[in-house]
Each structure stands twice: as C-alpha cells, then as structure tokens.
C-alpha cells in the first residue's frame, strides 16, 4: 500500500495551500524590499545613491535635477535607501511592476 495515500486523501478535505493570486493577496512581512521610491522634496543632491548603486540604475534626471531610478536595471538590493542621509529613497512594499505600456 503506498505510504502517501492517507496524506493525499487528507489533502482532499483541506483548504488548498495556493491562493488565487490577483484576487487574493498574501500579506507581506514588514521590511520587504520592494520597488524603491524617491521623495524628491527630501533630496539634498549628495549623489551618494549613484555611487552606492551596484547596477548603475540611478541617474540624474535632467529636468528636476534629482536622481531617478531605471527599474529595468534595479535589483532591489536597498543599498541606495541605506546610504541616503535624509531617507529620501525608501524601499516600498510594492512588488507588482507590470505595466501596460513601455516606459523607458
């Protein structure tokens, strides 16, 4: 008799472990590293984030003279948020980045 049979039949009457993702969302733990966000008001233009970024994803926005993050290169390591002296860059808990149009 296969050993897994009781477990399999038991599973029939258990709540499924998976969730219907876009409709049901899992709660994220505190401190999850999601998409970095920049508060342009707080930025003091020290450019430490540009030096710290391992992927060279941060560049200076010519219009506002503040850093801007190219998410295509960003690996969400959180180094920029760590070095920022005024906490102008923070790691949000957002993890859904799909867009309907091409942003470059």
């Amino acid at each position, binding site marked *: 008799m*296969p*050993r*897994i049979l009781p*477990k*399999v039949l038991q599973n029939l009457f258990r709540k499924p*472990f998976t969730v219907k993702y876009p409709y049901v969302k899992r709660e*994220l*733990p505190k*401190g*999850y*590293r999601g998409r970095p966000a920049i508060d342009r008001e707080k930025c003091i233009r020290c450019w430490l984030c540009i030096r*710290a970024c*391992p*992927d060279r994803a941060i560049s200076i926005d010519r219009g506002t003279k503040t850093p801007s993050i190219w998410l295509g290169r960003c*690996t*969400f*390591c*959180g180094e920029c948020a*760590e070095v920022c002296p005024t906490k102008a860059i923070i*790691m949000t808990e957002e993890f859904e980045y799909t867009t309907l149009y091409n942003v470059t």
Partner: protein
Amino acid sequence: MTFVLPVGPQHPSLKEPEFFRFEVKGEEIVDVDIRLGYAHRGIEEAFSRRNYKHNVYLAERICGICNVVHSTTYCQTIEQLAGIEPPERAKYIRTIIMELERIHSHLLWLGVAAHQIGFDTLFMLAWRDREEVMDMRELISGGRVHSATNTIGGVRRNVKLEHIPEMLRRLDKLEKSTGYYADLWGSDRTILARCSKVGVLSKDDAVKFCAVGPVARASNLKLDIRRNDPYGTYEALSFDVVTESEGDVWARGTVRLREILESIRIVRQALHELPSGPLRVPVELKIPPNETLERTEAPRGELVYYARSNGTETPERIRVRTPTYGNFASMKSMFIGGTVAEIPIVMWSIDPCFGCNDRATILDARTGKVSVVNFKQLKRWRR
C-alpha cells in the same frame, strides 16, 4: 547499432540550457558527451570591472538558488584579502541564512526529483513546504530569493528578536514534514524501484573524479567543508556530517533529506546562541596587492572563490569554481550502463546548476582543445 539521443540544450528534463549527447543502444546508454557553456554570462570578467562592494550583488547573481552562499563566500574572500574580521553576530546571521538556503535548495531538489520520476504529488507537497523556508527568508532578509543581506565586513540586516519565535514555530513545522518525506523516500515502493541501484557512483570513482558535496557523501566519502575546513561559526555549532554508503540516486536523496534535518538543528542552535553586538565593521575598499582562496560548503558541494587584489578599489581577478563543475566528471560513470529512462533522475541527482557552472572556459568537444574566450570574441558571436 547505436543512435544518438540529444538531450538539450532545450529539453523538459533540464531546467537550464546544457547539451548532453547520449549514444544509445536500444534503451541502454553506451556513451555520453557533455558540452557546456550555453549559459555563459561573462561574470568573472564583469567582476574585475566593478568595485568590491558592488561585486557582492554580482556574486549573488551567479546562481539564484544558492545566492547567499555565493555572496557569503565572496565576502569572506574579500574580508580575508583585506584582513577584516566580521563581528560575531554577523557571522551567526550569515549561518542562519545559509542554512535556510540549504534547506530550501534540498527541498527544491526533492520536488524536482519527484517530478523527474513522475511522482507529481510529492513534487507539489515538497514545494508547498518549501514555502515555509521562503517565508522565513522573506521575514529576516526582506527578499524571498535574493537576500541582499551580506556586505563586506558584516551583514546589512538584523534578525529581530520578535522574529525568533515565529521562525522556531516554522522550523518545527518543517522538521515534521521533512521527517515525513524522508520516511516516504525510504519506504515508497515506486520511489525505491526508480532510484535505488540507479546511477551508482562507487567510492573509488567518487575519489577519482573529485566528486563534492552530497554526491560524494552519498558514496560514503566524509567530505564537508563545514567540518573539514570550518568557516564562520560552524566550529561552535554541533551537527553531523551525513553519509550514506550506497552511492546511488536514492542515497543522494537520503543524504539531502537528512541534511535538511541537520540544517534545521543548526538554525535552531544559531537562533538560540545569537550573540549581541554590532552588525558590521567599517571597511576600507582600497585593498593592497594580495591573493587568497576561500572555500565553503554550498548546498550542492564545495564552492571555491579565488581573489587577487592590486591596490585599487576593483579586484584584479576573481575566479569561481562552483560545485556543479566539480560533479560533472563523475556524471559519465553514473550514466554509462544505465537506460534512457534513468537520464533525468540521474542528471538531477547531482543537483546540477548550469547557471552557476558556465562562466569562462569553453571545451571544444570535437578536438578536445580548451580555449578561453575573451570579451571581443563573445561580442562577435553574439551578433
């Protein structure tokens, strides 16, 4: 008459691109030719173009599954190179995350191995319980896969006190289910029929072909860098080096499953003994000319990092030898004499990680000539 059965570069039993050319007589394998290099990304070259601190994240991306052990080994290498001693608490946190990684890597292995022998229920259940580890890692490092916790001279994130009860609870749950899987792996008739006495690697062959990690330990070779050449906190923690004597696929699975239980023990100890203190020490990134070699025990076996500095902020050379590379040589003696039906499970039994493996050298299979490809050539081939 033999005919050639190509497995790869695209094949459902390979999760990554690699080419295996099997010469088959009916269902029996008479010869195998392994051609590597399909996942080459030029990472070693890229290492010498970034500074030491940025390279931590590059090292993490050599492999997705064993990213922490790569970044830890890299950090340990550079710390040794610069003569820095990380604080005790940092070492413990590294150990915790590395062992969690071993657990999730082995559970992943179990799931895929079950899928390779057509046992999809075990596959789904093993991956369900793997979620516990992923959640734990998410809890303490902020990322499910890439932890980004290590940095040169310590760690960046603390294991908070309020996380510890939650983690211990999850570890208990995990221990129970892993015990169940170990039991199942050793007693289910169909699993035994598919795995036992398949892809046997004898102890002599394991020594001859320099097998590493669980593959060597399944051939009764007591080889574990955590014990043979202790690094980090492993000297202070008690654990057993798991060995099995059969040397077949079943033994490799048993070694991995029992190692999960050992890892759970290590994580528990580390959580209990977690010392207080600073997380990291300040580092000076201009490292004087020096060279060093560091080895650690990755989930798949021995991982070696070699680094040479030249007085600037960037390393002159970083060389990585991943465990999969060490196990490729022993693959041939596992395959020959087996049948086609054994290919997926035997191939998976060494837990290959081709993304780790393919970096710099190319072996021309026809002439046997080894050539190192430079950046210009690669650029030309890309076109």
